């Protein structure tokens, strides 16, 4: 689907056209679900996030601006922010956990989760050229935060690095990315 097709569907969605909204869903839900699954790790949680995102997209379709990116990246922003919110509240719950509480964040991951999503199973895009210029661990840290929704703390657990260095690595990595992208 071309960008002008997406834009047309989004405009009609903003006008309350349910049929156009369904078409937009058919064309984009696979991408939004892939993003969500990488972060939430479980199909049911990932589906909840996609559901919330599309409810928001229906209500906020009129607030799309081209400056926020193409329609698809705007929609991905929405699902990612939703996943980050869900992950944060699951983590906050886990910190205040009492006996007998059901903690979703501790449940085992679905086996269907595409573990390779970090490195495989995707096309290379412009920003990958710039990511390639970073040091390996710096790139890896940014990818873990982006694709897995990991916090600084979780990234340092994953990469076995001190917290302070993970923070400054990510920060410097992003600054370097910015210079490369300009």
């Amino acid at each position, binding site marked *: 689907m071309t960008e002008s097709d997406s834009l047309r569907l989004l405009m009609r969605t903003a006008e309350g056209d*349910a*049929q156009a*909204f*369904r*078409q937009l*869903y*058919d064309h984009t*839900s*696979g*991408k939004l*679900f*892939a*993003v969500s*699954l*990488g972060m939430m790790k479980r*199909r049911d949680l*990932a*589906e909840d996030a*996609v*559901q919330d995102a*599309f*409810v928001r997209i*229906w*209500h906020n379709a009129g607030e799309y*601006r081209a*400056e*926020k*990116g*193409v329609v*698809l*990246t*705007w929609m*991905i*922003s929405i699902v*990612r922010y939703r996943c*980050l919110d869900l992950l*944060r509240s699951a983590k906050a719950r886990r910190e205040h956990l009492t006996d007998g509480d059901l903690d979703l964040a501790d449940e085992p991951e679905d086996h269907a989760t*595409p573990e390779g*999503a970090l490195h495989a*199973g*995707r*096309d*290379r*895009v*412009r*920003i*990958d050229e710039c990511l390639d210029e970073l040091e390996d661990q710096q790139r890896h840290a*940014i*990818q873990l*935060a*982006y*694709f897995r929704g990991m*916090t600084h703390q979780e990234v340092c657990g994953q990469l076995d690095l001190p917290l302070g260095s993970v923070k400054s690595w*990510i*920060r410097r990595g*992003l*600054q370097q*990315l*910015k210079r490369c*992208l300009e």
Partner: protein
Amino acid sequence: MTQQLSDRRLDTLAAEYVLGTLDADTRVKLQRLMMTSDRARQAVWRWERELNALGASLNDVQPGPVVWQRIEARLGLAGQVTADSARAKPRPSRVSSSRGWNPFQHWVWPAIAAALVLIMVSLNTWQAPQPAPTQVAVIQDASARALWSVSLTEQDMVVTSTREVTPSTDRDYQLWLVAADGRAPVSLGLLPETGQRQLARSALFDTATVDVLAVSREPEGGSPTGQPTEVLYSAQLVMQ
């Protein structure tokens, strides 16, 4: 966080905001700044464009059909969309026939259209076209002037304001569900000050006995505490 932020610092904050690694305090501060600063908004949008290209590069994974069904139910779209319509191939715009009798001669179309109208009219009188609101509440002020009407169906909740509502720029009206079991009021969302607004239908309508709906006056953006600040009105839901 003010305008003194250097471009470079603002840009790094924006990048970490989009990436999701900002701590809660800084995140909230940046969100507030975005409300007033075009520079901050632009910085965040630029990173949303760049970083979310990574998400767009992932291979599609199809969610289960239940996702669309739930979206449809939450938005009250059920029945408006047919699942296969999006994938239906466009029909040829002209039908030609090499056979002797062409069933699509022009006189046929008005006849088919007339028959369809007849069928639709009879279907409409035979079955209700839209799900009727199941419960309604009218919120009135002390002089019994109607301010809002709330209609609650099995799928959604729609609130309509009347002309008696005076729009205000510095405060909001918030709707609350007060349950009979004595639990703290639960927010249902902000009320429209003009026109109509669809609010998410709280699951509590199905699990708790509703005592009344209440309306409170709140600072702009809604209650800062999660509880009503100043309750102004209440109304009961009745079956329509």
